[in-house]
């Protein structure tokens, strides 16, 4: 019995030890002035979007020759995330990168980091609060501008009556995307209707989109606010035989979206290039530490980037490699 426990204890220590040693060993012998940064994001490890961000972070750490630790809460738990930020601050790193999906919950922890004299860069979400929290700069896509860019492109493609399909009503970021899209379309003389669908119910969403198209035959363009809206919209267009007749575009990438763009069934996808949201903050923090460089813009925009039929095949390869 005692032997078993001893064995188990040794295994446990070995497990923690190995994990610790490997992360240290990665960059220890080749550090750039021994710089150490911590990234705390709200992206869960299993989310494909965030694994691209994480790859960006890793590549930047390698390229800049600095040590970077990536932390995220196990669930979408802002309390746990603020405690991760506090722990990161207590470990006194040379720089901190955070995403700010909930400014109320995370603001105080970020301010404590700033007060402790740690340079902080925010990424992905929180562009509107980053400056007042004392963050050096924000790296991400501003949703309204992304929607506006999408609207301009769609109007240029000749769309005069569009649907804006919102799969998550109440999500502020999505409302902003739709608002920007609507404003750009209106400026070009087109009209936009908003249609709410349920992201957890693709069949029901498809039916709703079909019904909306049937009730308004003037519609010649659809903008979906994410791949969970794009898939049912695509199915609805296929079912109605309106591919090509009604232009379809979406925010964010997924394998189906890339296939559809490559096949000419979709016009474009708005890409926020989250790889940059992982990569660039590490570069900026390295330069801040070694050369005291700062960026003058409050927001360094990684989007909107556009994926169209011209570059879809290449983006698909990169997506398979895990960097798009």
């Amino acid at each position: 019995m005692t032997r078993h426990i001893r064995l188990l204890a040794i295994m446990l220590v070995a497990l923690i030890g190995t994990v610790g040693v490997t992360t240290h060993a990665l960059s220890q012998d080749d550090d750039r002035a021994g710089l150490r940064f911590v990234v705390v994001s709200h992206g869960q490890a299993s989310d494909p979007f965030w694994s691209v961000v994480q790859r960006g972070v890793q590549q930047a750490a390698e390229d800049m020759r600095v040590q970077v630790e990536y932390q995220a809460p196990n669930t979408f738990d802002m309390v746990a995330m603020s405690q991760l930020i506090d722990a990161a601050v207590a470990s006194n790193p040379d720089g901190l990168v955070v995403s700010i999906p909930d400014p109320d919950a995370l603001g105080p922890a970020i301010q404590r980091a700033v007060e402790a004299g740690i340079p902080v860069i925010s990424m992905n979400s929180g562009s509107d609060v980053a400056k007042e929290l004392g963050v050096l700069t924000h790296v991400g896509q501003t949703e309204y501008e992304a929607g506006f860019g999408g609207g301009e492109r769609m109007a240029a493609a000749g769309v005069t009556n569009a649907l804006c399909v919102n799969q998550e009503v109440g999500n502020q970021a999505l409302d902003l995307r739709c608002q920007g899209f609507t404003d750009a379309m209106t400026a070009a003389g087109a009209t936009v209707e908003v249609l709410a669908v349920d992201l957890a119910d693709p069949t029901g969403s498809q039916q709703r989109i079909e019904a909306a198209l049937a009730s308004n035959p003037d519609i010649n363009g659809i903008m979906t606010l994410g791949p969970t809206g794009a898939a049912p919209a695509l199915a609805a267009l296929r079912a109605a035989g309106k591919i090509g007749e009604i232009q379809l575009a979406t925010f964010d990438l997924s394998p189906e979206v890339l296939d559809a763009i490559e096949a000419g069934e979709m016009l474009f996808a708005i890409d926020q290039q989250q790889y940059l949201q992982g990569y660039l903050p590490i570069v900026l923090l390295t330069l801040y530490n070694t050369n005291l460089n700062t960026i003058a813009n409050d927001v360094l925009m990684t989007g909107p980037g556009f994926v169209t039929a011209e570059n879809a095949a290449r983006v698909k390869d990169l997506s398979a490699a895990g960097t798009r």
Partner: protein
Amino acid sequence: MAVTEEVAGQRPAADERLARVNPLRRLMVRPEMGAVSGSIVVWVFFAIFAGDRGFLSARGTANYLQVAAELGILAVAVALLMIGGEFDLSVGSVLGACGMIIVVLSVEYGWNIWAAIAASLLFAIAVGIINGYIVLTTGLPSFIVTLAMLFIVRGATIGLTRQITGRTQLGGLGNVPGYETAKAVFASRLKIAGAEFSISILWWLAIAALATWILLRTPFGNWITGVGGNVQAARNIGVPVIRVKILLFIGTAVSGWLVATIQAVTFTNSDVLRGNFREFYAIVAAVIGGTLLTGGYGSAIGAVFGALIFGMVQQGIVFMGVDADWFQAVLGAMLLAAVLINRFVRNRAMEVRR
């Protein structure tokens, strides 16, 4: 041979219950011993591997103590219930619901924050009573009943919040009437050695002290152990089984309410998903603290140290620079180690008697 006979002959009428036990052994058979020594081992481990990276600093200590405190409040109540022979899986969802009730009532409907906090307390008590009542009248396992309650409460929280506000995350609690006094009680920070310690740590210790006193010094404490050990025997000697168990269910729900209030007031907002998985973490902390899944045996102090181990490991691997991805794997290994050690200690405890 002759020696043994002589010894036996010296105290022919010795009652085994009065036999003197080696004090070290007596200490070892306390349910919390595994967790106390485990805490020391974990602390030393991180002091060695992460001591130069902030784990030993006042700020680092404040950090893991706060994590431990918020879990520990739940774990102490859950440990009492488990000693009483029942489970409560609805704690995390009650936590999410109470936080939402506080924010919705005070921000959306303009209530004074204290009235909103009181309303959410009533809600928690009601959930506890319903849990206890269903379990005791139907005889269904509390595991299933409270699991159902977990889904009902969590689902209703998401559904109602979306219906009322159209969102899943609500803020603005910092501007409602009464906020400053609520902040002093639930969210103040005490500055010690340059670091800010959360007041939730005091709540945690106070609740642990109360629970320990109840368990060890009051008849009610004996009843808890009794109903968890052998419910029929307890009933036969006149223990009010139903009252005891319903009070324990109320206790766990109220612990969820307390953590919800602390979090809502601290962060001035609430999220429908808050408290997700907390019910399992609380059980893990109680089990690491030596409480038996079968009931009748355990301690509140053990749950305190179980939560402390939990907090140190969860935050310690961040200090070490290990990706938090690994936290669950380490947690699982620790849980397994804890139950094996506890089993070993208990077997020893049985030997002592002979």
